[in-house]
């Protein structure tokens, strides 16, 4: 056990996890997931919000088993290696709000950092603006961190607190099995499904679930985090997590080339728009919110799986944020930003600044 434990904390450990994701994300696209969206934590949380009917955007409704797998895979790893620690109480409401605005920003760009990487590796040039925005947002976040920003301590708590999000995910999986997708129908029991659009495109349930579980397991062990990758480099010149993120991009690029999924260009990229300023701006908001909350959307799922109740609140904030995003016309589409997307980005940035400026020190 100890050797494996140490391995994933090493440089080669994080590189191998980046490579694993880099191989399987493009393969998930080959097996049915939307283009350049083998894995997108924001998009998939948004699809889950749609499956639950929290928004009614008909093209993005599907209970993504990858997300369920991420949480449960992390839970399994945490128990196998005795790292499950139920903890909560570090400014949960702030984490909820950050989760909601992170989602709103990500849906203006149309992807989280994971998808930004996958879009780039698939040849989508618009992703460059998204990634630059992500770096910009995280950079602003590091200024707050240097200034003493923090959300206070979490406390050890009842084991069941740490189990709630994993149980919710398990519940989602059970719902999928009880109410499976019916060809050509928008609803099965209580769950909504997409008949067309990205929500209708998915790998077989078992494939998505198993790959999700494996990534959840490996990411819990290696602490893989796409936001931390950039943050640690900006803040400490630490390249550990960055190596994993870069490996993901490079390996996904190679696999996309092999699979014939590499289509370089800016116009008509799948599930993307060409409004560069807002590809950038959306991700500034998302990057800042992730940085203030201490993890990328994937990492929040993995933390929630190992018992972090505050990360679980961030996840729920993201799902609710997706509902708001589509109900209020904040989310972008291939035609460009939504009618109120720009307003929402500005309000989100102001909210993040308020949080960053007012929550400092006093860590006694």
């Amino acid at each position, binding site marked *: 056990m100890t050797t494996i434990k140490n391995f994933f*904390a090493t440089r080669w450990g994080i590189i191998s996890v980046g490579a694993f994701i880099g191989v399987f994300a493009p393969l998930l696209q080959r097996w049915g997931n939307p283009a350049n969206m083998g894995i997108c934590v924001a998009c998939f949380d948004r699809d889950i919000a749609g499956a639950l009917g929290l928004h009614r955007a008909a093209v993005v409704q599907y209970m993504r088993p990858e997300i369920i797998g991420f949480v449960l895979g992390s839970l399994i790893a945490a128990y196998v*290696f005795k*790292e499950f*620690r139920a*903890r909560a109480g*570090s400014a949960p409401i702030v984490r909820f709000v950050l989760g909601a605005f992170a989602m709103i920003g990500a849906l203006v760009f149309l992807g989280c950092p994971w998808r930004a990487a996958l879009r780039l590796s698939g040849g989508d040039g618009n992703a460059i603006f998204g990634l630059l925005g992500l770096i910009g947002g995280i950079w602003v976040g590091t200024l707050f*961190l*240097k200034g003493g920003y*923090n*959300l*206070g*301590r*979490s*406390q*050890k708590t009842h084991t069941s607190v740490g189990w709630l999000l994993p149980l919710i995910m398990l519940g989602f999986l059970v719902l999928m099995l009880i109410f499976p997708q019916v060809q050509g129908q928008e609803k099965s029991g209580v769950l909504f499904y997409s008949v067309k659009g990205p929500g209708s495109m998915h790998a077989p349930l078992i494939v998505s679930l198993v790959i999700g579980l494996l990534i959840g397991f490996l990411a819990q062990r290696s*602490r893989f*985090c796409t936001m*931390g990758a950039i*943050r*640690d480099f900006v*803040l*400490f010149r*630490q390249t*550990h997590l960055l190596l994993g993120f870069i490996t993901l991009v490079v390996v996904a690029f190679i696999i996309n080339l092999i699979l014939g999924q590499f289509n370089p260009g800016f116009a008509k990229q799948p599930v993307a728009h060409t409004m560069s300023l807002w590809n950038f701006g959306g991700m500034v908001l998302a990057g800042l919110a992730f940085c203030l909350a*201490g*993890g990328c959307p994937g990492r929040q799922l993995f933390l929630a799986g190992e018992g972090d109740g*505050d990360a679980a609140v961030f996840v729920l904030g993201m799902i609710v944020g997706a509902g708001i995003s589509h109900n209020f016309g904040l989310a972008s589409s291939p035609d460009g930003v939504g009618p109120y997307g720009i307003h929402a980005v500005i309000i989100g940035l102001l909210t993040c600044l308020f949080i960053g400026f007012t929550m400092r020190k006093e*860590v006694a």
Partner: protein
Amino acid sequence: MSNIVDARGLSCPQPVLLTLNEMKKINKGEIVILVDTDTSKENVSRAATTQGWNVKSVEPEGIGYRITVSKE
């Protein structure tokens, strides 16, 4: 007498940030860092090593760890 950094319950990157601040403050000597997750344990140890500090010991304490780092 060691300087103690209590990073228990703090999320990323606070434990590393507090440790590095303490290192800058005392420049050399010994620092004890208290953390409560394996992630923080790894991150603090890694950061200490890259800063040229020696990780003297990592002992379980309570639900977390007591990390002792030093620099001559």
